[in-house]
């Protein structure tokens, strides 16, 4: 993502203008027989209180990053005007916007969850797994069910099969559909947009990116350590 997206001057200018940025480390990769296993990236666009509006899962090019950042800013402006200060409406507008993108860009329908049913995971429950630091690892949230169209979408499906992270998902009728990382992000966000980042990163890394998360996110000195090494630091 660094070379293709975040190093791009236009992306940098837009992100610096509309966002305040930071980074965290989620788990680590292992070297097995000289081969790197694991290693990935997820970019979260959040409200100032840390609630997630949108996610870009996996490395993307500059054009994609800029498009997604602009979509977040424009959708936020629209949602602020339409919700008129009502937090519940704001959330519903954002989740519906994700469902709409899943329909228009990927040809699949999902009912946006415009209200939240259950309480968050009980951190003190005996059934809750806690990592060594004493905090539970983020739950792997179940994605909402999808509806496929009653016609086949050959071209859309061929394109989806070539998308980064393409995987087979099944609709309510059990029919298989191909969906890439960003399609599954919209599916997830149609149900969990405006959830806090600590409840979402497990689903993003494990369910969408297929990376095992072993620890909660931690602050790190630098996400790009080779930069200092190259400059002699």
């Amino acid at each position, binding site marked *: *993502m*660094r*070379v*293709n997206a*975040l*190093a*791009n*001057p236009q*992306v*940098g*200018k837009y*992100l*610096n203008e*509309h*966002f*305040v*940025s*930071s*980074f*965290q*480390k*989620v*788990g*680590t*990769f292992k070297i097995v027989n000289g081969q*790197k296993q*694991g*290693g*990935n*990236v*997820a*970019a*979260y*666009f*959040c*409200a*100032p209180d840390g609630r997630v*509006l949108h996610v870009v899962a996996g*490395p993307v090019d500059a054009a994609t990053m800029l498009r997604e*950042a602009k979509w*977040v*800013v424009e959708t*936020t402006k629209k949602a602020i005007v339409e919700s008129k200060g009502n937090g519940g409406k704001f959330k519903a507008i954002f989740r519906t916007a994700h469902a709409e993108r899943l329909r228009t860009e990927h040809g699949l329908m999902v009912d946006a969850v415009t209200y939240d049913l259950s309480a968050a995971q009980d951190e003190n429950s005996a059934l809750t797994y806690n990592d060594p630091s004493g905090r539970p690892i983020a739950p792997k949230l179940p994605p909402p069910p999808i509806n496929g169209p009653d016609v086949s979408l050959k071209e859309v499906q061929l394109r989806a099969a070539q998308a980064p992270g393409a995987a087979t998902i099944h609709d309510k009728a059990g029919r298989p559909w191909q969906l890439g990382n960003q399609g599954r992000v919209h599916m997830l966000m149609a149900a969990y947009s405006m959830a806090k*980042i600590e409840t979402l*990163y497990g689903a*993003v*890394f494990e369910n969408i990116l297929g*990376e095992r*998360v072993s620890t909660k996110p931690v*602050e*790190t*000195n*630098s*996400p*790009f*350590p*080779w*930069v*200092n090494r190259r400059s002699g*630091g």
Partner: protein
Amino acid sequence: MCRFVLSVAVLPLLGLVLARAADKKETEATCGNNGTAVHFLDSPKEAAQQAKLEEKLVFVLHVSGLFEDPNLT
């Protein structure tokens, strides 16, 4: 003898100054662009606080492993 006492007294002080300079360099490395066009703050909490003040949104990057692999980055 005097020179020896001076060096014994000055060296730890010099070490302290160098250590502080190194700390400063480390701090600068953790709050900056990190070789990108994006300005990063040290933590999401700090970013959230500044975002509220500036009426901006928050961008949080979660990284797993290193970005050295060009296929990944």
